[in-house]
């Protein structure tokens, strides 16, 4: 028995030694480098497969289930037989694609799918975290076994788990997660793990030799005693019973898968592989290791049983030396158990932490906008390591002795078995695609959970036993351990059967039913044919057209998202060196493609293939010219590929098809260019035609303009002639009227004198004749007066001064006082405005309009209304009456000179009145018109424009005078 402090010190000392070994291995001295890269260390490190489950559990399993435990080690031997093909492929894929974990491998194969990587990570987490708890449980259990019962209450014994977790976290972070690039080998870590594997083998063999040759007298004695004892059936293989065989076979299958697809196994075998040649040694050394460590399992189990060791069979390995009081052997065995547990804990936590960081946290950062956290990826990975270990410890504390945890080893194996179809299918079957892998993996994981993990929860007492006995909702067909009525299989074979049936079935069916995209096809071809990849490069890569300086900032910007400036530049320089273009200013486009690929590969080593692929695709690109050059280079690579005829044919078919598509696309583009050219030509032609037409039209317009100008000149001349003629005529009328007035007055006076003196003295005819003469003279006088008044409008007008138009209207009405009184007419004035006009002429205008209204009255007494409204800078006057009205067809006719609508006898007059009105209005620059219906009265409208200042009548009437021939008053 040891004091707890002693054991803790021994534990710390042992871990310190491992730490020193690991640091020595990391420093990279020539000896350390040779050692760490040796196949011996690689093969021994692969024995991390043997955990405390092996160290302690195998004996326990042998004591209770006979040779079944051997399947866990025979299975790896069977799997190793295929390693020359399988593991070599995986290693080469890892080197080509910088694969960092098993989830990364699956993601990289199936289109670099983030979702698939996340699914694999989750499955690994669920399957592995309790397995880590199992290791911690073994360490704490053996610690208790080596300390006296009285020490159980001490702080150290109670917290040994925490101490181990702390030590393992420091060890894992310092040795295993010092760098971000997870694909970089951790030589020190590998060396330390190999040493641990040697220690645990040596410790177990020591315990076995002690039991076999000290407690007993060799194998013969041991087996003889066993045969005679009640434990004779220890090696009973089940007498060929079918359930036993199913169990045996399923364990073999699980172990075959586990040796390759447990995250820690994948990490050591693939990620930490420094040379494919190391596989040749691992081929025989790992199975040999497994064989040796198992030689003494049955003797120790038999020894424990035969000596009636009171403890659990799992503790026989340590219990036998302890009971014999062999302190040294006991301590050595304790360290062997610690080695078995810690080796697994360190590598598994690193592998799972890498998966969690790259495939769960990184995508979450990018989705939630926390991209700045990418700069702290290494620290986050440290936290993930600690998180995995602490979670494992909490599991151990919470469910330490449950059925679930005790059986977690085989449950974990069944979980990682789900990785087998997508991985093996991915490296051997090109047709396998992302949908198939996703469906198969997802469904397989669900079936594993339902048929194996869920029953373990029931057996741990966390769920009702009715779930197993009766199925959910009492549906017997859904009983987790007898799914769809399959009752002949023990739980593990049952789970393996259904999960594999679903996983493989969906993987194959979905892969066959759905098409792969171009990326998947390329990756599938690369993965499946990785061993025959000759990596041919074209002999002529073309001109060095790419400026490296132009590309460097893009690469720096990309890397700076994850690394500091110094590291970013270092990585770029490393990639340039790897591609062979260091310090070159201009490179070929093929070299640029290799540089991008190398950068993606290196970045994938830190953040995983899928995130690296996406990051490179988003940040680094080719110009159109570079892409074209790259296509040519690829064509040359194709030509220089040396592959089998069948493969070449299939590849040529693929590229021919692609080339055909590209040619078709090029032809289509050429046609479009030709169409564009034709359209351009037609456009140019149309433009020319348009210009010609415009020119012709311009000439026509010029000719028309000249013609129009000539016509205008002619018209002006005609107008001038007309005006002059009009003026002369007006002058003639005025002069004639004026000169005719005197003789006419004389004729009229003497005729009237004759009438007064001789009326009734002559005969009747003479009186009548004299009456005719008097009447004619009067009418002639009236006519001449009207004509004079008409002529005077243009020649005797006054200046336009502000006048009250109502006064003018009333003045006009006053001149008709007699007629108004006789007819009983009523004139209504509606607030008429003050404006600039000729007051006399305006009064005459109103007088004529009122006179007309009275003259052409109906039976009723005339009612005359006058009002005005201001519209568009002019005053509109309206004079309305209730007279006999005018036929609308004569609405313009009435304003003409000497035009009459009635006979003189019906309505006397000269036919000058309205013509005079029109002339007055026009002299003022306005218009006049009439609206009327027969029998409904008439409304005469005329406009007078508003004027700002007074103007001389001659100026104002200039246009009128012009129209009148510019004549002057005589």
């Amino acid at each position, binding site marked *: 028995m040891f004091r707890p402090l002693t054991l803790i010190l021994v534990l710390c000392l042992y871990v310190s030694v491992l730490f020193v070994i690991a640091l020595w291995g990391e420093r990279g001295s020539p000896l350390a*480098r040779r050692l760490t890269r040796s196949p011996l260390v690689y093969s021994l490190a692969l024995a991390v497969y043997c955990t405390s489950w092996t160290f302690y559990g195998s004996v326990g399993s042998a004591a209770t289930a006979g*040779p079944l435990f*051997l*399947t866990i080690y*025979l299975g790896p*031997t*069977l799997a*190793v*037989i*295929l390693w*020359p*093909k399988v593991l*070599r492929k995986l*290693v*080469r894929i890892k*080197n080509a694609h910088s694969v960092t974990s098993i989830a990364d491998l699956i993601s990289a194969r199936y289109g670099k799918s983030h979702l698939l990587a996340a699914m694999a990570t989750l499955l690994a987490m669920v399957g592995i975290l309790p397995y880590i708890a199992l290791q911690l449980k073994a360490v704490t259990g053996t610690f208790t076994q080596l300390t006296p019962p009285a020490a159980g209450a001490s702080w150290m014994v109670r917290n040994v788990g925490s101490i181990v977790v702390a030590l393992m976290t420091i060890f894992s972070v310092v040795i295993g997660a010092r760098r971000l690039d997870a694909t970089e080998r951790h030589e020190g870590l590998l060396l330390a793990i190999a040493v641990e594997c040697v220690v645990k083998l040596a410790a177990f063999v020591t315990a076995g030799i002690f039991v076999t040759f000290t407690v007993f007298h060799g*194998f013969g004695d041991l*087996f003889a005693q*066993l*045969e005679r004892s009640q434990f*004779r*059936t*220890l*090696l*009973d*293989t*089940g*007498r*060929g019973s079918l359930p*036993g*065989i199913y169990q*045996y*076979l399923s364990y*073999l299958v699980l172990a075959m898968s586990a040796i390759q697809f447990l995250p820690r196994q994948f990490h050591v075998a693939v990620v930490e592989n*420094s*040379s*494919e*040649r190391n*596989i*040749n*040694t691992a*081929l*025989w050394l790992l*199975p*040999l290791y497994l*064989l040796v460590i198992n*030689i003494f399992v*049955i003797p120790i189990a*038999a020894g424990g049983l035969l000596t009636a060791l009171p403890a659990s069979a799992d503790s026989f390995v340590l219990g036998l030396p302890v009971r014999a009081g062999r302190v040294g052997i006991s301590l050595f065995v304790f360290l062997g158990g610690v080695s078995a547990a810690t080796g697994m804990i360190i590598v598994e936590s690193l592998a799972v932490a890498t998966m969690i960081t790259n495939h769960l946290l990184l995508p979450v950062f990018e989705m939630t906008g926390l991209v700045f956290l990418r700069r702290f990826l290494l620290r986050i990975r440290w936290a993930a390591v600690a998180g995995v270990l602490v979670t494992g410890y909490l599991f151990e504390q919470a469910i330490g002795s449950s059925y679930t945890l005790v059986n977690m080893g085989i449950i974990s194996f069944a979980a990682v078995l789900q990785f087998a179809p997508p991985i093996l299918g991915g490296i051997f079957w090109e047709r396998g695609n992302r949908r198939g892998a996703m469906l198969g993996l997802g469904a397989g994981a669900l079936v594993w959970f339902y048929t194996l993990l869920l029953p373990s929860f029931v057996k741990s007492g966390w769920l009702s036993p009715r779930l197993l006995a009766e199925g959910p909702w009492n549906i017997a067909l859904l009983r987790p351990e007898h799914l769809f009525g399959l009752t002949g299989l023990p739980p593990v074979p049952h789970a393996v059967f259904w999960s594999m049936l679903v996983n493989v079935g969906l993987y194959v069916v979905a892969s066959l039913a759905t098409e792969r995209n171009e990326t998947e096809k390329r990756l599938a071809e690369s993965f499946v044919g990785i061993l025959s990849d000759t*990596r041919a490069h074209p002999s002529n890569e073309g001109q060095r057209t790419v400026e490296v300086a132009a590309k460097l900032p893009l690469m720096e910007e990309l890397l700076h998202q994850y690394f500091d400036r110094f590291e970013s530049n270092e990585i770029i320089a490393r990639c340039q060196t790897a591609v062979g273009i260091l310090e070159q200013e201009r490179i070929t486009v093929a070299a640029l493609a290799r540089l991008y690929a190398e950068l993606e590969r290196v970045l994938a080593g830190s953040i995983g293939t899928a995130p690296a692929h996406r990051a490179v695709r988003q940040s680094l690109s080719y110009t159109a010219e570079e892409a074209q050059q790259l296509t040519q280079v690829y064509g040359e690579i194709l030509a220089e590929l040396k592959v089998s005829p069948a493969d070449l044919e299939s590849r040529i078919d693929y590229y021919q098809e692609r080339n055909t598509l590209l040619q078709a696309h090029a032809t289509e583009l050429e046609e479009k260019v030709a169409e564009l050219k034709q359209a351009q030509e037609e456009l140019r032609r149309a433009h020319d035609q348009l210009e010609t037409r415009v020119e012709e039209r311009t000439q026509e317009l010029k000719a028309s303009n000249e013609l129009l100008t000539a016509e205008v000149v002619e018209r002006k001349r005609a107008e001038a002639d007309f005006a002059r003629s009009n003026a002369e005529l007006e002058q003639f009328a005025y002069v004639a009227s004026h000169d005719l007035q005197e003789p006419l007055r004389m004729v009229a006076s003497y005729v009237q004198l004759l009438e007064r003196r001789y009326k009734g003295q002559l005969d009747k005819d003479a009186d009548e004749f004299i009456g005719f003469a008097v009447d004619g003279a009067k009418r002639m006088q009236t006519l001449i007066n009207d004509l004079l008044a008409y002529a005077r409008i243009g020649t005797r007008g006054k200046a336009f001064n502000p006048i009250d138009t109502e006064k003018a209207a009333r003045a006009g009405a006053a001149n008709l006082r007699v007629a108004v009184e006789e007819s009983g007419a009523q004139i209504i004035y509606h607030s008429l405005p003050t404006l600039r006009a000729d007051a006399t002429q305006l009064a005459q205008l109103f007088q004529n309009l009122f006179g007309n209204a009275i003259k052409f009255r109906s039976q009723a007494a005339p009612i005359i209304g006058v009002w005005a409204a201001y519209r568009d800078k002019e005053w509109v006057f309206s004079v309305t009456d209730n007279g006999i009205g005018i036929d609308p067809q004569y609405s313009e006719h009435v304003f003409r000179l000497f035009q009459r609508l009635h006979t003189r006898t019906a309505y006397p007059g000269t036919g000058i009145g309205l013509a005079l009105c029109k002339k007055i209005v026009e002299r003022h620059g306005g218009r006049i018109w009439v609206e009327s219906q027969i029998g409904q009265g008439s409304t005469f409208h005329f406009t007078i424009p508003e004027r700002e200042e007074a103007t001389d009548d001659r100026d104002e009437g200039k246009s009128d005078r012009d129209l009148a021939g510019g004549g002057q008053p005589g």
Partner: protein
Amino acid sequence: MRKLSTVLRQHAFHLLLLFLALVAFIKPMVLATGNERPGRVVLELFVPWALVIVVLFLVGRSDDTPDPAAAQEEPEQD
């Protein structure tokens, strides 16, 4: 010897070895009667296991496939 190496390198041989090993490992389970002596069962499992390891040793020795990754790192070792 060269012919043997050629055979051992073949993938088909690996498949044959897998099949034979599987049969050898399953045989004691299938054909057990329950009257075997404990030592015999152990021998029936461990001897084929050891034989498989010997053959795997020969397979490992026979491999002469070049290692691209190691070839790239060789100058670094100098």
